[in-house]
């Protein structure tokens, strides 16, 4: 499936002059990010994107197993060690802490691992099946350290002191094993764990995702952030109601005919997208340009289990302009598959300060 080249890639020659262009400048002709054909984590939602030291934060994952065949079910695991204030705020700097993880005072909200978890994985032998030791399920609670902010190394250029906690999780269609440390390996990104099948064969990218979520802590009472909300879902100009679910929003879904065209580009396009209220476009006190406090950037990622979207993401609110437009401007275009069936599409709405929510839309293709 062809992936449309993002528009930003078209201006990358210009952006490159400032050295700001990297992976977004990928060409066309590659896999479509929006269509789910493997084990995928689509989003995580923290009930407090900006927490206070000592707060307990509830994390909820949105994941889906889109593999055509499923020899083993996908499970969600959480690494029970959490990483506080790694050097340079780099997620990979946490791997060095793996062997001396603090464990966590939280605990699994799902299938449940032992509270306090398996901190100190470095004490275990490589090849050990960690799955019984790991909290599992789509949710997890973590408590921010009381010294989350004060323990963070001072960072010049950040107007408000903050702390950072990183929580790791794995969506794995098998079990999780501790990987051996290869002698001489100096790559700081070297993965500490892997996903294995019952025969201890390490599984590939279609069968697992190693993810992480950052939770920021602020002592300053003015530093708040809430997750964006979704008023309704627009489908071909019609409002589709939404209601809160255990994570994100649920919707009644819609029906659409299957595509009868031989060429995919000729398939009918269903304009769909989330409608996010302007109240979600919060001011960002840290972002001041020429004396003006700017706001969040809000965008939506699009996923589907079948069919395809014409783009994988749409901007909803710009930091200075605000709303990009009404639904007719921000909606994406969904093209149904050639074969009838049932599936899902998701809209994951992000703000650029760690806030997120999503809507799940069942779709029936006649």
């Amino acid at each position, binding site marked *: 499936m062809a992936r449309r080249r*993002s*528009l930003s890639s078209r201006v990358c020659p210009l952006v490159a002059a400032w050295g700001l262009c990297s992976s977004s400048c990928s060409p066309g002709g590659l896999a479509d990010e929006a269509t789910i054909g493997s084990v995928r984590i689509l989003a995580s939602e923290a009930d407090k994107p900006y927490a206070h030291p000592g707060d307990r934060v509830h994390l909820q994952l949105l994941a889906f197993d889109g593999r055509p065949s499923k020899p083993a079910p996908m499970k969600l695991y959480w690494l029970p060690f959490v990483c506080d204030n790694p050097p340079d*705020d780099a997620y990979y700097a946490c791997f060095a802490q793996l062997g001396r993880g603090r464990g966590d005072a939280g605990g699994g909200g799902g299938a449940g691992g032992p509270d306090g978890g398996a901190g100190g994985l470095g004490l275990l032998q490589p090849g050990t099946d960690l799955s019984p030791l790991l909290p599992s399920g789509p949710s997890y609670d973590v408590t921010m350290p009381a010294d989350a902010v004060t323990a963070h190394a001072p960072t010049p250029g950040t107007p408000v002191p903050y702390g950072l906690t990183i929580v790791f999780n794995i969506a794995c269609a098998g079990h999780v094993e501790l990987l051996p440390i290869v002698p001489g390996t100096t*790559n700081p990104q070297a993965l500490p764990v892997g996903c294995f099948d019952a025969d201890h064969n390490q599984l590939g990218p279609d069968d697992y995702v190693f993810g992480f979520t950052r939770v920021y802590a602020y002592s300053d009472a003015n530093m708040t952030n809430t997750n964006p909300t979704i008023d309704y879902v627009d489908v071909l100009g019609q409002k589709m109601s939404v209601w809160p679910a255990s994570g994100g929003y649920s919707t009644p879904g819609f029906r659409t005919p299957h595509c009868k065209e031989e060429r995919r580009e000729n398939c009918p396009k269903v304009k769909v997208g989330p409608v996010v209220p302007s109240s979600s476009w919060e001011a960002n006190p840290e972002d001041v340009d020429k004396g003006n406090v700017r706001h969040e950037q809000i965008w939506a990622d699009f996923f589907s289990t079948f069919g395809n979207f014409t783009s994988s993401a749409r901007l909803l609110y710009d930091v200075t302009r605000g709303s990009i437009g009404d639904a007719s401007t921000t909606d994406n275009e969904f093209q149904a598959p050639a074969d009838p069936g049932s599936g899902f599409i998701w809209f994951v709405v*992000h703000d650029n300060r760690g806030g*997120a929510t999503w809507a799940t839309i069942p779709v029936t293709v006649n």
Partner: protein
Amino acid sequence: MRCRLATTAALAVGLCIALCDVPNLARAQANPLTPAGQAGAAPPAPDTAPPVPVVPPSVKKNVGAEYPRQAIDEGFNQDVEITLQLTIDDKGVVTKALVETPVGHGFDEAAIAAAQKLEFDPARRGGKPVAARIRFTYRFSPPAAILSGRVLTAAGDRPIAGATVVARTASGEGHTATTGADGSWRIEGLPAGSYHLVISAQGMAPHEADQSLAPAEEAGSIDRLAPQAPAATTAAPKPDEQPVEEVEVRGVKPPREVVKRTLEQREIDRIPGTGGDALRSLQYLPGVARAPGFAGLLIVRGSAPQDSQYFIDGTPVPIVYHFGGLSSVVPTEILDRIDFYPGNFSAQYGRAMGGIVDVGLADPKGDRLHGMAEVNLIDARVLAQGPLFDTGWKFTLGGRRSWFDAWLGPVLTATGANVSVAPVYYDYQGILERDLGKRSSIRFAVFGSDDRLQILLNQASAAQPALTGVFSTHTGFWRAQGIYKNRFSDDTEFRLNGAFGQDYVDFSIGDLFFNVTQWPITSRAELAQKIDPRLTMNVGIDLYYAPYTLDVRLPPLAKPGQPPPGPFSAQVPLTTQSSDSIYQPALYTEWEATPWKGTRIVPGLRLDYTQSTKAWDFDPRILVRQDLASSPRTTIKGGIGAFSQPPQPQETNAVFGMSGLSDNRSIHYDVGVEHEFTKNIEASLDGFYKQLDNLVVVGRGNTGSGVVYGGETLIKYKPDDRFFGWLSYTLSRSLRRDAPGLPLRLFQYDETHVLNVVGSYKLGRGWEFGAAFRLISGYMYTPDQYGFYDENIGTNLALAAYPRFGSRLPLFQTLNLRVDKIWKRPWGTIDAFLDVINVYNAGNVDGIGYDYNFTHTTYVGDIPFLPSLGLRVEL
């Protein structure tokens, strides 16, 4: 630069003696000598018989005697007389020759040898041939010498007609010649000795040289004159001749640097794939690697782009390309020269470890009003220049504006971008100049550039959401510059360059922005004093002071060798607002010594102060050139120099950088040889080695080091009436180590092989065809693979190979063609051209593209087949 051309052509200046015959005969008559055949053989005449008159022998054939080679070789340089006693038989043949007073040095033998070739009518007594003996004198004078040569332009070796050549003896006696249409001159009949030559031409800097002449020697020389900037005038072209201006692109300007390479504007105009853009032509020179597309970078001898500096007439400027590489900020038409120093440059330049590009603006033409207009797919430009009424001032006014916003804006809109300001750039140049007498001049110039773009990217990039939303850039600069030059005497020259202006960069995308404005004040002053004909001292100051304001919100700087930190949105942006200044004064001196013929030694010293590091840098440098042969010229050369470069402003910034940094250091070593095969064909081979130390590494400090080594070769056919072209090849390796103990790795800008072949041929009837081929090692890159999922941003992060930049993209190749058709009209010329990049659409690779989770890759292509049409009208 002079080179002796001709061999010594001996002039046969025998002295004999048609004029001497009579005295000789008179002497013969007066002397008590008798015809030898009569001595004792003839019966004595009866006393009573009347004496029979004797008619002395007369010269019938005399080939003369040459000033002996031995005397010339022994440095004997005087008039000499040799008197011989000749015995001549009754047939007129010299049967015996005796030197009365030998003088040596080969004169005696020369006189005898010449005498034996004499033929006489025999002496006669009573009408009857008889033998006789006579005295015969040869008078030798040193043969005259000849000076000859050609006077050419330093840039392009075009002949200079009407140049004056004065050869003056030690006593002050002068001999003058004027060059012909082909630039040649000749002075004959010169006594042997030492001469001081002064070659001068209108609008050109005079050139002086010393020449020693042996008797009968013809010494030839080729003298190349450089334009005398303040007083330069351009002769009106002949009606049937296309106006030719020159732009030099010099590897290093002699005599104060190691290498010299020259490209004329005729070449720059016609190099395929450059669109006639002068600065783009730099990429075809040895030592220059291929820069990443649209980044506006210059990679010189394995150095990082920020290690090179750009100047316009000695004034530093922040950028040289619009939008990072679309076209130069100074149009070719207004350029006088481009000095390009790939390394080991003069002490007058500092604060850089890579290369130097110094662009010179052309002096306005003073003969009449000129105009030019050009339109191509990218921009339109106009230029006017000429005398400013009768004020003595000359002016140039030029401007250019892009117009591709007219078609790119709708294209961007069609692809979903909401374009409020489509890409637009413009630049402008204004020059006022006048001569202040014969020896001094003053020039004021204003030049600037402005690029701006604003679009709304409403199709967010899931991989980089921060690079979404309003994308706005506005960059530019302007300078007001004054240049005063005064040649106080033949031995003393002073040059003062001062400028002030503004640089600005306003950039924003998403929630990130970078706004900086600075007001640089720069000044250079240099005094050149000839202390001795063989020694010139240069001393100068070089000031840079720039107050600035900074307002930035950006992610932290990436650390070399570390994995990508993830999307910009995932990092807490750093914010800083500050007002400060950059202050970097410097002093330098450089001495040009020519201790003996063909040798040039240029030691130099530079002292720099950097306010941000509070450090002094002491950089000694030396260059040696030695001509091994004069015709054809062969020169060996070498140089060693220390170079210091302050940390980049962001590296010392309190928020983005670190404290306690000191300057980067480098030592350049160069050796090379140059050889002129013919008037048009020359070749050079240069080897270089750069030791890099104390390099600033983000997040670590001055822990970096490295080496760059390699060789460059250039075989060039200099422009003649129909053809120019060259082949250049650079082999280099650039290595870096981020900290002691870490492995030495290939630098990200390493491009091991760079091959360029360029040629252009005038087919006649106004048609000209050119081709340029490039074959270059691919860029270094870091392979990525499936890694992690950033749930806050909703994007996959790569597991990057380590160490970074450990793989290389495929070889780059491209063939560019250009066809020009020129129509000449009485009022000017029209040039229509087609410039085609990547003619056979080679699938060159500019990078690696990945799918969303880095499990599949594809190549990101470079510029495909790209034709460009243009039209230029010159009045």
